[in-house]
């Protein structure tokens, strides 16, 4: 065996520890699970949503029956997605919205009555179809449904266009013929928190919310991983240098040592966090400003802008999540033998930070199922990731609930850490524990 082969074998043996192999396997499972989650989300977003149709029965003009055209376009398998509403073409907006709420519909389109239709046809002016949406906070793809409603209008328009082109002669208004049915900006009505807003779709709102909150999960994940790594490494270093042994024989309460370490690291983490958020908001602002020119949606007009109290809650949530991360790190760090072994201890924390980041980014809290919501809530780092969108949607309960949960989590983790600091594990490591000895058969 050559010298280089000996070195390679030794290095591989050192690098491929059971801990590192398990970490890689966990990451594979995690990404596979997230792939399934995102795939499911994309599929459900692409699926034709159930929508309400307000239309007069029968043909509006020779051979043009809007309800029948939509049934034909979507096929028999999707026929149940088209719900003919009780509201009539003359019903008021509030009547239509009430019926949508009653029937659990999040979108509906209303065609004009036959008389108005005939008038528009005669004057060759575009026939306006009204769109109604009940805004629901969802994940990255959840608002795609509102764009599908626009395609419903396009189907009606192209079918009427074909009819008009086939039968037309003489003076022709080509603009009308090419696009006879459409929705004027003011005929799009989206209901947000009970109030109707014209000219915007849920897609527009979702885009604006996402552009303002997308960076938060990434920033939180980076901070958690960074601060966690600092604390665990510091614990490993303290053990290696035996400065921790010295500190533990000083006349200081264990709670003071643990709390002091956690609070100091949390303050540093918060400073890092604010710096990252500032940097990323400038970056995101530059990106959206340059590429899309920012959306026309004003969250302030929708009552979704955050005020000072909301920002304070976001900061508290972020601070507590850092404290929770540090609590976990102090527990993990207690088992680290030295600086090197401390490095591998950060993996569980990284995984815990990545899970909510992907969930919050792709499905969102409101778009997730019960089991995923339970997992997301249980991971303390989820809460600052969800806080901003939740406060935009006025869901203060979720944010306060998260803060209360994190406070309890932080307290429990500090108590566990203090208990570990009072035990032998900090000095002897986990290998000397009787339960571990039983489990591994070691003495």
């Amino acid at each position, binding site marked *: 065996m050559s010298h280089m082969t000996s070195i390679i074998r030794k290095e591989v043996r050192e690098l491929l520890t059971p801990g590192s192999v398990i970490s890689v396997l966990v990451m594979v499972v995690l990404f596979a699970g997230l792939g399934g989650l995102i795939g499911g989300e994309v599929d459900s977003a692409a699926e034709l949503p159930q929508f309400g149709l307000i239309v007069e029965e029968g043909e509006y003009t020779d051979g043009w029956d809007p309800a029948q055209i939509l049934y034909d376009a979507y096929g028999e398998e999707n026929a149940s997605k088209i719900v003919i509403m009780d509201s009539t073409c003359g019903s008021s907006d509030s009547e239509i919205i009430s019926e949508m709420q009653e029937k659990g519909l999040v979108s509906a389109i209303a065609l004009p009555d036959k008389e108005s239709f005939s008038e528009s046809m005669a004057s060759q002016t575009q026939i306006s179809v009204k769109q109604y949406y009940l805004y629901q906070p969802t994940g990255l793809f959840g608002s795609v449904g509102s764009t599908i409603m626009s395609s419903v209008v396009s189907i009606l328009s192209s079918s009427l266009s074909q009819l008009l082109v086939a039968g037309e002669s003489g003076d022709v208004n080509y603009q009308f013929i090419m696009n006879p049915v459409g929705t004027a900006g003011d005929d799009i009505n989206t209901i947000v928190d009970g109030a109707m807003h014209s000219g915007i779709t849920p897609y527009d709102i979702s885009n604006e919310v996402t552009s303002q909150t997308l960076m938060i999960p990434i920033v939180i994940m980076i901070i958690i991983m960074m601060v966690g790594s600092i604390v665990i490494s510091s614990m490993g270093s303290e053990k290696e240098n035996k400065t921790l042994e010295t500190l533990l*024989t000083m*006349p200081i309460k264990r709670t003071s040592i643990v709390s002091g370490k956690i609070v100091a690291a949390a303050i540093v983490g918060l400073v890092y966090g604010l710096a990252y958020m500032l940097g990323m908001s400038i970056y995101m602002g530059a990106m959206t400003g340059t590429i899309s020119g920012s959306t026309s949606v004003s969250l302030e007009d929708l009552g979704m802008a955050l005020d000072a109290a909301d920002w304070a809650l976001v900061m508290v949530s972020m601070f507590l999540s850092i404290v929770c991360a540090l609590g976990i790190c102090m527990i993990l760090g207690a088992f680290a033998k030295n600086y090197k072994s401390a490095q591998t201890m950060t993996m569980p924390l990284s995984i815990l930070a990545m899970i909510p980041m992907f969930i919050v980014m792709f499905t969102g809290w409101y778009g997730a199922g019960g089991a995923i919501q339970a997992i997301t809530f249980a991971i303390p780092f989820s809460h600052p990731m969800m806080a901003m969108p939740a406060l935009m949607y006025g869901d203060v309960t979720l944010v306060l609930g998260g803060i209360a949960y994190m406070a309890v989590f932080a307290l429990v983790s500090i108590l566990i850490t203090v208990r570990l600091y009072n035990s032998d594990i900090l000095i002897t490591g986990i290998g000397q524990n*009787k339960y571990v000895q039983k489990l591994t058969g070691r003495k």
Partner: protein
Amino acid sequence: MEALVLNDVRKSYGNREAVHGISLTVHEGEIFGLIGHNGAGKTTTLRMISTLLRITSGSISVYGHDVATEPDEVRKIISYLPEDAGAYKDLTGRAYLEFMASFFASGAEKEAMVQKGIELADLGDRIDSKVDTYSKGMMRRLLIARAIMPSPRLAILDEVTSGLDVINSYEIREIIRNIASTGVTVVMSSHNMFEVDMLCDRVGMIDQGNLILLGTPAELKAEYGVDTLEEVFVKAVRG
């Protein structure tokens, strides 16, 4: 009052008993040496005295304070220096002493304590250099100074001259002699039998968790009919 009393002290790690019922007494102002080969149980015993490890059974009292039930009181009067200990590398020697002194005193009293530490460390201008630039000898002098500056009643020093050169070892032994002369009780472990012979008033030898010898160096040498403590050690271990 006795400085340190160990009464049938046992320590188990899981199913393995590392210390098997050690009993001994250390008198006030004494320099007591704990000797034994690697893994004999010296460090475990010192860690139990220092409140770092819990006692499985038996009892330890330091100046009348029970280590198990009054650890906070014990920590106020002891100073422990682990084997191969380091200091916070980003701090200067002075900042390290100030940090450690802050746990014992404040204001002028703290200043006086730090000044005492600086004098004990005797590092000259290097006291304001970062700790990670120190040699092993300088580091050990700083740590000894840290351990002594709060004027503990009991100093527990684990392998304090291990790995040091002749001059540094000599200087540290001088420091230990000086602090003992002021009434501080010292319990130290060492593999250097020459050092133990020169420094210690009494010696206890631990072998496989048992205290197998206890007495003054002169008594032990006489008992085995040899000239050095090293020979006592070898004969005691080999039977």
